[in-house]
């Protein structure tokens, strides 16, 4: 039994699709909106902007997050900026160009219609954020400033120092707090979603655990919106916040929602290299640094000299050499892969040999140290704090690290999954970035989904649900709540010998090795053997101390790692099934003579959406084929 996936893409010319769709969408009248209860899980850019806007429209919203305040969602950590096709720099930008760059950057594995809508809405996002008081950088004349980011040749990135995510999130958070004050949104911080509740096949509620008291209960609603972020922490070490997890989307997947392209993960080229096994997370150095920093390694293998002792002619500025048109500004997947390549050749730098130089000496000579300090002062400070090295004097050492996940729950043009009523926004869905995301476009997508798309598309579902209220008294709610409780009791009763962190670290090392920057069939098959064994050991030998009815961080972590141990298998399976290289998914068997990703458009120009089929059963693969009417499929070139 194979499901047919309908992405519900509106007909008509690309530039008219979104306005046409809005015009034809169903509406919920203002006096009816308070009758609809909506659950929003997540308070990052996507969740906070959605909850605030839906509350403002008059819906009755409940919003959940696991942090102690919605303001602390992982979006807060975004440094570099947010894209918009404003063309304020008069450098030839346009909605079409942003659309085109994003499709090409994603290596032709995203939907044209979604990406075009994103590019269109980018204009409204900046207007909205500026009106809310987001203090974007400005020029002396008082107008908004821009900078450029990897993978494009125009300056369309808006930024607030190195704290763009923080300022955008605070804008959305403040709008959310206003709605909370108005009584349209009720906020549940320190509350974790453990499961999704379906009634007659529709998403009608969630099971949650209060992380302070340990109490487990359920909430019913007319529709459920997940905005729970990405799953990068499946790799244990990543640039994501410690709490980022796959639980909400994975639980929804096990209830029937399709998981799309789980193997599309982004490895960011500019992170501080790993220094030891005690390390809990990796730190990103903003991509904007590549605007002024030059990437190089010694030409000679194992060169023991310090960087200042290596003359220019003995340095390999490999990105400038291989990609003269884009140089250090090639997209992330390409920059990362090339860093790995030179390190694999034995030319890596630093104590572990897993690092390349990002050198600012030429930029300092050209612009002066004070200009560089003004541009990146806080990043240089952060670098010094962590590594004890002064990047004004000696080049930074960087290495790629897991950063973002393009895969996520499958959604249609309305951002609804195949499970009626379940909608997914932001990094948690798969929708707009294909096989590789361009810098400064995740913030754009989160806010587009939350402020502008879902508030209008959700009515298409709600209009069919008048008078069909679910209640937490229904047996479906009781059953799901009971399952969640049993699972927690089971975790606490194992009392084995290994800590949760030990399992998480082992899993991370395995998937980084086999399903990281480069993958091949043999390694993936090996991982697919090892993961179930690891999972079995986890359920026999994990040690979770304490009690379920209290604040218990080890228990929170255990639940998340248990889900990563299931999810990791799907990620590797997806990587194995996709017999091509595209964007961040690089299969060693499929590369061009020059070592670039070799796509196979004939067989793989599709979204791979996986349907859960039960434990120990291979999931079903359902394909949504991608059509390209406005962009020509071509070999991506940044030369």
């Amino acid at each position, binding site marked *: 039994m194979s499901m047919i996936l309908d992405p519900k893409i509106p007909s008509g010319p690309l530039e008219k699709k979104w306005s046409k769709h809005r015009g034809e969408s169903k509406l919920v009248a203002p006096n009816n909106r308070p009758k609809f209860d909506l659950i929003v899980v997540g308070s990052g850019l996507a969740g906070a*902007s959605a909850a*605030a*806007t839906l509350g*403002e429209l008059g819906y009755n919203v409940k919003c959940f997050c696991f*942090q*102690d*305040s919605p*303001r*602390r969602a*992982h979006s*807060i*950590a975004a440094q570099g900026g947010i894209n918009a096709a*404003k063309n304020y720099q008069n450098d030839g930008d346009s909605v079409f160009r942003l659309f085109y760059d994003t499709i090409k950057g994603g290596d032709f594995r995203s939907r044209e219609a979604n990406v075009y809508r994103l590019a269109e809405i980018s204009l*409204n996002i900046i*207007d*909205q*954020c*500026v*009106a*809310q*008081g987001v*203090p*974007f*950088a*400005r020029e002396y004349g*008082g*107008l*908004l400033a821009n900078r450029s980011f990897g993978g494009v040749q125009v300056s369309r990135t808006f930024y*607030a120092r190195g704290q763009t995510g*923080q*300022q955008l999130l*605070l804008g959305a*958070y403040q*709008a959310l*707090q*206003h709605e*909370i*004050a108005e009584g349209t949104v009720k*906020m549940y911080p320190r509350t974790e979603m453990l499961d999704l509740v379906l009634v007659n096949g529709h998403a009608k509620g969630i099971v949650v655990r209060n992380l*302070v008291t340990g109490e487990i209960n359920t909430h019913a609603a007319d529709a459920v919106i997940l905005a729970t972020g990405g799953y990068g922490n499946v790799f244990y070490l990543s640039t994501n*916040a*410690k709490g980022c997890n796959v639980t909400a989307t994975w639980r929804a997947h096990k209830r029937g929602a399709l998981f799309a392209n789980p193997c599309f993960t982004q490895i960011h080229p500019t992170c501080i290299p790993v*220094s*030891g096994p*005690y*390390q*809990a997370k990796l*730190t990103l150095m903003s991509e904007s640094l590549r605007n002024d920093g030059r990437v190089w390694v010694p030409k000679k293998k194992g060169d023991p000299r310090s960087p200042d002792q290596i003359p220019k002619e003995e340095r390999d500025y490999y990105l400038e050499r291989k990609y003269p048109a884009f140089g250090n500004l090639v997209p992330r997947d390409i920059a990362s892969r090339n860093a790995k390549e030179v390190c694999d050749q034995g030319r890596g730098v630093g104590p572990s040999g897993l690092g390349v130089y990002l050198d600012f000496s030429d930029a300092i000579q050209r612009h002066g140290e004070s200009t560089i300090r003004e541009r990146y002062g806080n990043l240089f400070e*952060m670098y010094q*704090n*962590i590594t*004890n090295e002064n990047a004004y004097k000696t080049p930074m050492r960087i290495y790629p690290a897991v950063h973002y996940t393009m895969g996520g729950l499958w959604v249609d043009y309305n951002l609804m999954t195949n499970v009626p009523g379940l909608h997914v926004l932001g990094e948690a869905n798969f929708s707009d970035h294909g096989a590789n995301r361009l810098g400064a476009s995740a913030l754009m997508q989160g806010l587009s989904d939350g*402020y*502008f798309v879902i508030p209008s598309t959700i009515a298409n579902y709600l209009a069919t649900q008048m008078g069909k209220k679910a209640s937490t008294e229904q047996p479906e709610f009781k059953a799901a709540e009971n399952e969640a409780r049993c699972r927690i009791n089971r975790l606490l009763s194992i009392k084995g010998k290994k800590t949760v962190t030990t399992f998480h670290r082992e899993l991370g090392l395995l998937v980084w090795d086999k399903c990281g920057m480069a993958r091949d069939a043999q390694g993936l098959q090996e991982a697919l053997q090892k993961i179930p064994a690891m999972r079995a050991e986890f359920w026999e030998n994990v*040690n979770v*101390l304490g009690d379920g009815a*209290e*604040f218990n*961080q*080890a228990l929170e972590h255990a639940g998340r790692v248990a889900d990563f141990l299931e999810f990791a298998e799907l990620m590797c399976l997806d990587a194995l099934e996709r017999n091509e290289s595209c964007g961040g998914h690089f299969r060693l068997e499929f590369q061009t003579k020059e070592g670039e990703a070799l796509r196979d458009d004939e067989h793989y120009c599709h979204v791979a959406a996986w349907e859960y089929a039960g434990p120990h059963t291979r999931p079903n693969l359902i394909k949504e084929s991608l059509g390209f009417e406005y962009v020509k499929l071509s070999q991506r070139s940044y030369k």
Partner: protein
Amino acid sequence: MNFKLKVWRQKDGASPGSFKDYDAKDVPSEASFLEMLDIVNESLAASGEDPIAFDSDCREGICGTCSLVINGIPHGPGKGTTCQLYMRRFADSDTIWIEPFRAAAFPPIKDLVVDRSAFDRIIEAGGYIVVRTGSAPEANSLPVAKHDADLAMEAAACIGCGACVAACPNSAAMLFVSAKVSHLGLLPQGQAERESRVIHMVRKMDELGFGSCRNHYECEAICPAEVSATFMARLNQDYALASAKKVLAV
């Protein structure tokens, strides 16, 4: 490196707490303070003792989740947050005291974790500019002088961690409130609600049990986001003006 830790343990808000001694052994000097605690927690788990509860998330100094008073100083020695503190700042075999942020408005939850949701209540009272989604004018139609925008950004940099309250002998939240009032009040977009904002936020702050500011400036000294105390003067001015206008009903 090895350290002697004196850590505040408290089962929950209703139970009393006390300091307990722990040894942190074989900690690499490149480890962060929180990684040091992770190492200790791993060894506690092995010996069957409940791990020490502490808050953290981004571990990059931006989310404001981590807290801790280390040797009497919120976020410990040096600038920045606890998660950005590295063990190389300490000497081998140092004794380190670790406590939660303490303030009446931040009730304890467990060990080193406290409830800082009072800050959310203050923002709810008026820390925003109301803009109906989709009704905003074109972004460049209202230029903002670079100086004002930069200053607003300095105030907006507050990470809401609560260290200012923990550092203040009176547990005042003035620096936090002044940062938001100044961020929004410095921008042309924030003028319409400027007076009601400051009045409501200050009232809420008082109501929630934060103390009053006696100009100790401990808050400015420890603020990891380097929010300047001059914003407090701005808050006082705005508040005085708004209150006077209210009394005179002009």
